[in-house]
């Protein structure tokens, strides 16, 4: 009997039994383990074995199903409450950082403005009125790091219009460039070479 039932199970696993035998087998609790084992053997032989073998999947699924509603239902509403309390603080900080960012953009924009004005002034110096060929004096005598404004009205605190600020920057750039250009153009600005006799002393 035992032997023959084993054969049944084996045949059922291979799909070689009819529906009637299958229902008979299903009602036979002892054969369930056999069924599982045969499937396992078949999987192993076909090389379809998972990395970790959980022999009792049904049990773990049953446990999971049992746990699920108890976790979900009660925790839902308190979670919302907690979120509601917490969300206030991040929101205020969002506002602050937004302002900060705004300030940074303003600074970045003003720096960009200086750079743009610098470029513009090169272009303009190409017209006929220009006293000299175009000189890009910046690289050889020293680069301009972004102008940091310590005092004075450039920081638009006193309600200057954009145009006025632009005009200001253009003028400042012109002065700075000319200052450097003059050092290049005027041999007089350079200290003359000392005569060798003096050095050799």
């Amino acid at each position, binding site marked *: 009997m035992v032997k023959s039932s084993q054969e049944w199970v084996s045949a059922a696993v291979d799909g070689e039994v009819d529906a009637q035998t299958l229902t008979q087998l299903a009602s036979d609790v002892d054969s369930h383990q056999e069924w599982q084992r045969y499937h396992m053997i078949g999987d192993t032989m076909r090389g379809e074995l998972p990395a970790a073998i959980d022999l009792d999947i049904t049990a773990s699924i049953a446990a999971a199903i049992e746990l699920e509603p108890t976790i979900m239902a009660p925790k839902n509403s308190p979670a919302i409450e907690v979120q509601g309390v917490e969300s206030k603080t991040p929101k205020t900080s969002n506002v602050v950082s937004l302002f900060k960012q705004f300030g940074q953009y303003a600074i970045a924009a003003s720096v960009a403005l200086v750079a743009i004005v610098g470029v513009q*002034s*090169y272009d*303009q*110096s190409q017209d006929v*009125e220009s*006293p*000299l*060929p*175009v*000189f*890009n*004096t910046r*690289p*050889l*005598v*020293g*680069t*301009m*790091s*972004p*102008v*940091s*404004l*310590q*005092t*004075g*009205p*450039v920081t638009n605190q006193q309600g*200057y219009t954009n*145009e*006025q600020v632009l*005009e*200001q920057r*253009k*003028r*400042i*750039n*012109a*002065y*700075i*460039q*000319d*200052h450097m*250009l*003059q*050092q*290049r*153009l*005027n*041999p*007089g*600005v*350079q*200290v*003359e*070479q*000392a005569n*060798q006799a003096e*050095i*050799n002393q």
Partner: protein
Amino acid sequence: MRLFLLALLIISPFSHSEELSAKDWLVNMSQALSETQFKASVVQIQADHVRPLVFLQGTVDEKRIAYLEYLNGPPKNAVKVNNTVTFLEHDQPPYSVNANLIQGVWPVSLYGDISKLEQGYQFVLGGRSRIAGRAGQLIRFIAKDEYRYDAQIWLDLETYLPLRYDTLNRDKQLLEQTMVIELIEFTDSPSILVEASKHDWPEVIKQADRKDAQDWQFTWLPQGFSMVVSDNHRLIGIHEPVEYIALTDGLANISVYVARAPEAPMPEELVTRNGLSMVVEKVGNAEVVALGKVPSQTLERIARSLALK
């Protein structure tokens, strides 16, 4: 006898350098800068800005040739043949000016008469440290008053060439640094200098629009500063005629401009992170603008002491 002389030759530079005063070092440096043939790879640091460059100088057929190239960004070179410097930049045709050295690496006054610097700075011998794989001797330029910034220089023990030059503000914070990372002496000029000596460079530009300035004078100037140029020209970019006066104490260059005051008001004071300051003084319907790498208080006082003779 020969051995003895050889020994003497080896020993003498060492024993000699021990006795050198700070000024002797600087005098040797200025001589080395005008006579030595060398190639220096250099980095310049300003605030958060780093620029690598290479500088060569040598003698080809009795001509003093120097070559400067900036290694990052669009190509920018300068070539000096005897007393003509030609600037080669990507965005404009090359042009030449009269000058006996290429600016931009070391302060121009280091090539010249060192004693001129003594009026404004005290030279102090410092310690030794290793820079660019060479032993360097530190010499400080201590400002004699609060009207200018301090500086310090490291000189190569062997060649006396500068290895590093720092400008420091009044709080001893670094404003600018020029540092050699490789220094090579040579006896035969490299091909680039030979080429430069043979090349036809553009004529020196004429600055026809330069007029004489008015008779300006200063009722006060910091010790050591003197007027080197004064003229009337148009500002680059905005083409406005200005009266221009250049002042220098050897290390710091100050430009003073007198122009008609613009409609848009100008900031009274402005400082860039590399130490360049600018001060604007309004006098009636004119403005006096002073700028240079000195504390802004100095500029303010200079701008206020400008007067017509």
